[in-house]
């Protein structure tokens, strides 16, 4: 078990971070190059003011008509995404690893809070799963990949939760947790999890078109 842990937290973690950062930069650069080559006009219409106006509306709960129309989904999706981002970055155990390896450290969450955030991520994922399986308009456009990416995202949280509480075999859970984290990081740029890096651009472009050309709200 030690060897799996060492592999996952050693070379594979390097590969995962490399794929995550390198892949993210690659996706963004490739998109921008494609814009420059084929749809150069897009740059003409981009506006910082209207981009930020649109993004700010959509990253604020209940600030758009559609968020208000879907109160449960809005609460769940914001809680899910905030916990998903914040918990891993500010988990004390993670920060300690950074400190041990690179001498970097920052503010950390109390373990109990991080624990609850993990539960929220898992519950959020269950909500999305149920929504996919039961809501006809979501089910209709669901493909296998949608379940795969949901599993990729929730796996590090489930295994992390089990490891933290030392249920089942701790060394096994810990190894699986690190492995699942590696997989998630590496998958972000190369699956539709890339909405994490690309959606600000699509939102910004639509915001710019609506703001500067259409003179209408896009929320």
């Amino acid at each position, binding site marked *: 078990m030690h060897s799996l842990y060492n592999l996952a937290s050693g070379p594979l973690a390097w590969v995962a971070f490399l794929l995550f950062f390198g892949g993210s930069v690659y996706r963004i650069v490739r998109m921008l190059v494609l*814009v420059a080559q*084929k749809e150069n006009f897009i740059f003409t219409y981009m506006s910082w003011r209207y981009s930020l106006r649109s993004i700010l509306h959509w990253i604020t709960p209940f600030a758009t008509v*559609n968020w208000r129309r879907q109160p449960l*989904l809005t609460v769940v999706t914001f809680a899910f995404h905030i916990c998903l981002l914040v918990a891993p970055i500010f988990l004390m155990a993670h920060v300690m690893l950074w400190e041990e390896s690179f001498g970097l450290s920052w503010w950390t969450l109390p373990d109990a809070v991080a624990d609850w955030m993990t539960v929220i991520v898992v519950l959020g994922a269950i909500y999305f799963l149920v929504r996919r399986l039961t809501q006809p308009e979501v089910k209709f456009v669901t493909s296998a990949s949608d379940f795969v990416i949901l599993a990729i995202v929730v796996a590090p949280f489930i295994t992390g939760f089990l490891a933290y509480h030392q249920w089942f075999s701790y060394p096994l859970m810990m190894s699986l947790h690190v492995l699942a984290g590696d997989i998630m990081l590496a998958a972000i740029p190369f699956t*539709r999890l890339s909405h994490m890096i690309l959606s600000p651009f699509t939102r910004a472009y639509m915001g710019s078109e609506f703001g500067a050309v259409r003179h209408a709200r896009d*929320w």
Partner: protein
Amino acid sequence: MAEPSKKEPTTVVDDGIDVGISRLTVDKIASVINSVINDETGARLKTYVDTCIHCGLCSEACHYYLSHDKDPHYSPVGKVKQTIWVMIKKKGRVSPEFIRQAAIIAHTQCNLCKRCAQYCPFGIDIAYMMLVVRRIIHRLGVTPLYIQDTAHSHSVTMNQMWVKGDEWPDTLQWQEEEAQAEIPTLRIPLEKEGADIMYSVIAPEPKFQAQLIYQTAVIMNVAGVDWTMPASVGWDNSDMAMYTGDNEIMGRVKRAHFETAERLKVKKIVMGECGHAFRSVYDMGNRWLGWAMPPFTIVHAIEFYYDLIKSGRIKIAKKFDRPITLHDPCNVVRGGGLHEKARYVAHAICETVVEMHPNREHNYCCCAGGGVINTGPPFKMTRIEGNRVKAEQLFGAKTNGAEVLVAPCHNCHSGLEDIVHHYEIGLDIKFFGDIIYEVMEKPE
């Protein structure tokens, strides 16, 4: 995944589509699809497809979806799934029958109203993807017959309705004479170089709604506007080629329009109460020609009336006394932000304005726009049944007292006529121009 099979089979027969697909092979389809996707699209299509998280949140934006009891086939993303996703995934190798269905979806089950862009958290432009599908359909020669005929008319006559060269000035002269019975000094100035304004219309006005030109002539004359209309091609601002994906003809038509304004050395182009023409002149046609924004100031009738009333150039003798409700056309409201100006005009000329809900940018489409009404009789019921939710919205306004529905857009007008008639809503439909003509101060 399991797909609910709620949607009834399509039985429509359209000669443009059916004859078109009879000529197709999988190889030909694949070569056209790949050519469009590789050569004519870029970062937008790729990023939209890669970023969509399949959440379905765009669904409730769509009047077709709402009107079909939330059948997911009609949701915006559902239409994308049934068309461009499959084309991309199969690298273009889809069957003629698939193309038939794609043509029906893209041409008759989407008005390109972009309401879904306001509901997608990522701002994915689904209307753009439907236009890509229409472009593919065009290049495969499967465009629905009626709208294809309109595109042919644009190509041959540079107007939408096969109006012949002499019929145009003839119609203007006829309306000038008619209006002179009311105001003897009235003129419809043709080819007046250096006028402030070139007034352009869509071809259905001279073809069968010539009274709209009459009304405009009266408004222009009373307000003392320095205006002109071209006597040659270039007078028509409409553009169905834009909606068939025939971008080359869109470009020719718009170039003729802009060059006519240039030739007449006018300061701006004022256009009648039409939505799609505004989209073509202000948003799409100019871009195809390489203009980020139109080369002329484009003033839609709503804004023009707003200016005339606000500056006191036309005065209201007695406000229109029947309660009205205002329909916000997608192309000038979601596409041009004219909703507050429209309300200013409405309140200035009418005693009572009853809002329908939703309104402004969130108004439901008329279901005629985006070229859907131009696919003609085979799809008339598609648009009426596809917009039950509009009927419910209009009933709501009527319940609150509205008797007249003002729709400052030609396609909206015609589409709403069908909806009001079919669902027996009992609202009279008018243009702003109809009411202004009726209530304005005119010389004795």
